[in-house]
């Protein structure tokens, strides 16, 4: 395949040409309540061509019929030439990599029969249903894939990657007297079959929480000191800060660049943030990004000061910085754009724990888990799975509908304590941007305290 792609690149008349071909084998099992929704095996394949000519824009072609490859290279070239640019697009230098990168499969999912996958998910699904009569519905899914990716460009890069992935997720829906609540568990790993066994208890716990939330009051809206648990702190840093650190937000926009000037203070000295696509064994980990650039650990905030951002080759060239290996595409159907990988808040002092963070809070909220998050530039929202009131330095009653809303700059600056209890939270789902969803990412953080944050809810 590499030779076939190299031949097509050679024939290209464009200044720069890259070709990505993917073949993805996947299987899916889903339950809704006690009923099996689906159990299928799928095969998806296709290619992506992107070319650039001097004084012209990008020409892009994606396609499912690989027989069309030479024709698609020619069409991408025509498209590029139709886009005239005064200010040319440059790509930052990277050494062309030649490698075969085979990630550990940890139990190749292609060798496990679909009926075993059904049985595994059935166990997790049944564990949720068995918790209480109040669990009226569940949605459970198992999905695995092994994706083969070939990447060749006209600068000499030639890569073959084997990327595995497995995700098990379950939502338990509790209902009583017209109240409806849900609990959500999701485990997403860049591994295989062996890594998703024996999680019954985690599914039981979320179903029990859905039941408990039925009797919980809604949190009262307003500003509180808020402790984020590890999972929510990770979602927070991804949503609230990570997206602004993606250089495609600033590279063509002088005002945005000014707002995100390196050296600007973003938080107190305790705050350290980064994105590490090279971390071992995480869902957001890949040896190379989708432009063939090796991934790396990129510091973004060091001791409260903005020190870096995430780049593709184009954004790095424009800003005179180095590519960071963050150009990613969810599939051959899309161009690579600047994305996060494994984004983290670094742990605070070893030994500082959750209790040290809440002891001096008279009235506050402990926000846990994440149903999701979204940013609109400097404004963000994230929805906790559940929460507790903190009263007089102690965790008190369970509350529901905990939605945090805020302004990035104010909120980051209000992070006043960071615990030492760091964990990576490897969930399914993924990040969405520019019509590309879901991109596998991981978030990691310790418990984090925000002095004051806005919680939506009853006023």
């Amino acid at each position, binding site marked *: 395949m590499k030779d076939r792609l190299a031949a097509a690149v050679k024939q290209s008349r464009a200044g720069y040409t890259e070709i990505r071909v993917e073949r993805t084998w996947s299987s899916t099992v889903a339950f809704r309540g006690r009923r099996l929704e689906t159990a299928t095996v799928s095969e998806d394949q296709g290619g992506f061509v992107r070319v650039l000519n001097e004084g012209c824009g*990008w020409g892009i072609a*994606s396609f499912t019929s690989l027989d069309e490859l030479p024709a698609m290279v020619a069409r991408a070239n025509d*498209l590029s030439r139709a886009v005239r640019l005064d200010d040319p697009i440059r790509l930052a230098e990277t050494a062309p990599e030649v490698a075969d990168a085979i990630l550990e499969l940890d139990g190749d999912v292609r060798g496990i029969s679909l009926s075993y996958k059904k049985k595994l998910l059935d166990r997790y699904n049944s564990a949720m249903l068995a918790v209480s009569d109040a669990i*009226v519905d569940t949605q459970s899914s198992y999905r695995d894939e092994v994706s083969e990716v070939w990447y060749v460009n006209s600068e000499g890069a030639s890569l073959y990657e084997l990327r595995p992935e497995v995700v098990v997720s379950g939502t338990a829906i509790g*209902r009583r007297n017209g109240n409806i609540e849900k609990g959500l568990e999701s485990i997403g790993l860049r591994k295989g079959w062996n890594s998703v066994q024996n999680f019954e208890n985690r599914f039981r716990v979320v179903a029990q929480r859905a039941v408990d939330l039925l009797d919980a009051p809604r949190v009262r809206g307003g500003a509180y000191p808020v402790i984020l648990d590890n999972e929510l702190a990770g979602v927070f840093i991804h949503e609230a800060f990570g997206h602004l650190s993606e250089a495609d937000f600033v590279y063509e926009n002088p005002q945005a660049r000014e707002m995100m000037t390196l050296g600007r203070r973003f938080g107190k000295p305790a705050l350290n943030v980064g994105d590490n696509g090279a971390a071992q064994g995480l869902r957001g980990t890949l040896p190379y990004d989708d432009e063939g650039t090796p991934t790396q650990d990129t510091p973004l905030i060091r001791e409260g000061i903005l020190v870096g951002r995430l780049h593709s080759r184009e954004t790095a060239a424009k800003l005179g910085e180095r590519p960071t290996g963050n150009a990613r595409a969810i599939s051959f159907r899309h161009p690579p754009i600047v994305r996060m990988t494994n984004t983290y808040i670094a742990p605070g002092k070893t030994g500082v724990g959750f209790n040290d963070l809440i002891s001096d809070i008279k009235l506050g909220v402990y926000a846990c888990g994440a149903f999701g998050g979204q940013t609109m530039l400097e404004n963000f929202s994230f929805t906790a799975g559940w929460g507790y009131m903190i009263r007089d330095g102690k965790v008190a009653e369970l509350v529901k*509908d905990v939605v945090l809303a805020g302004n990035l700059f104010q909120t980051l600056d209000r992070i006043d304590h960071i615990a030492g209890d760091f964990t990576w939270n490897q969930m399914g789902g993924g990040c969405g941007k520019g019509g590309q969803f879901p991109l596998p990412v991981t978030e990691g953080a310790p418990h984090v305290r925000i002095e004051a944050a806005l919680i939506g809810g009853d*006023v």
Partner: protein
Amino acid sequence: MIDRVLDATRGKVDGGGADALWRREEQTAVAFESGRLKSAGISEQAGLNLRVLASGRMGVAGTTAAKPDPVELVGRARASAELGEIVDLAFPTGAASELPRIPTFFDRTASASLDDLIRMGRLLVERLSRPDCQVNVSVQREVADTAVGNTAGARGEYRATGIAVTADLTRIAGDDVLMVYDQYVGADMPGDADLETLVRSVETRLTAALKVVTPPDGALPVVFTPAGLAAVVLPLEQALSGKTVLQGSSPLAGKVGETMFDERLSIFDDPLTPGRPASRPIDDECVPSRATGLVERGAVGRFVYDLETAARAKTQSTGNGRRGVFGKPHIGYTNILFRGTDGAHGAHSAVLGGGLIGDIDEGLIVDDLIGVGQGNVISGAFSHPVGLAYRVQRGEVTGRVKDAAVAGNAYELLKRIGGFGSDGRWLGSRFSPSLLLEGVSVAHR
């Protein structure tokens, strides 16, 4: 292609039958970033989805292979069926299928050249450019061929066009980031008037947003614009799905015919709306298209079903079957229309609030909320920070509010609607006016 695959199921499904969908899509897209044309792209994709009923059990298989092997595909679908549930599903026969006439293909859209698309984008960039703002514009055109068929003899084929023109303006002043966004989506090319409407819509909302004011506080009247309405409509869409009803998680289950909402509220799903990209003569399971009254004069009308959920609920499919290349068919809405609201469509299209703010002493206009769809949607409860919202004081827009969140329960709020705007418009596949809802919680810091 469909016939070859259906033929290959003969003798392999123990008399149960099969249906299939084949779709080929061609897209052409141009993107302007910060006012500059940066890229042009095409995408050509084809795929086939097969469902079999073997010994009463349902299985599916899909492929994007250029020349799919029917035998391999049928084998995979049968393996899927071996694990599948028993479904008493009857494929529609071809006999009744005099398909409704609905134009889905517009030659102007299909034949527009790359230069035509670039010209349209450039015109928008020029109209929207201003010194302190970044303008992004994208134009995306699609031509799709769809063929559906089943072993009971039903067949359907159509060709459809779609075009989406989106424009967004970003203005950053210090740490204040303002984003205003709008789109034209249709099956036919936008006319000059459509593009003018898009420009005016963006300009109107930008101009009113330049001044930032402190948000109000408390239980207030809030006008949800057609764009801002998503948080209120989403719970209804989930609750009116036959699937959620079967599952026992719909708060509207068992309420058919009961008045649950304001009596002026009527909502339809209508796949036969002219000029819309989601319109189609037949659904993805060979059921001829027709309109469904979801909410009629405040009463719960019909739930929407595909073949499988209809069979389980012992009712008929409403023609809401939708399927992709992979996975099994599922329920999907086509075009959702708010109907029977007297306001002249478009009379106030460029006026914020759709003519509803005159009597508001203190309130908000919500045009965009952040995080819609994240929470416990089906319960109707929502709580979101505002993405774009305006303060209303003594009947006038006084500026944009930031750092505020709105919360409420969609089912409760729709019981008493304060007013329907005269600014009805399409947004994606939903047509609605602005709605004035009373007693929405507004929190700020």
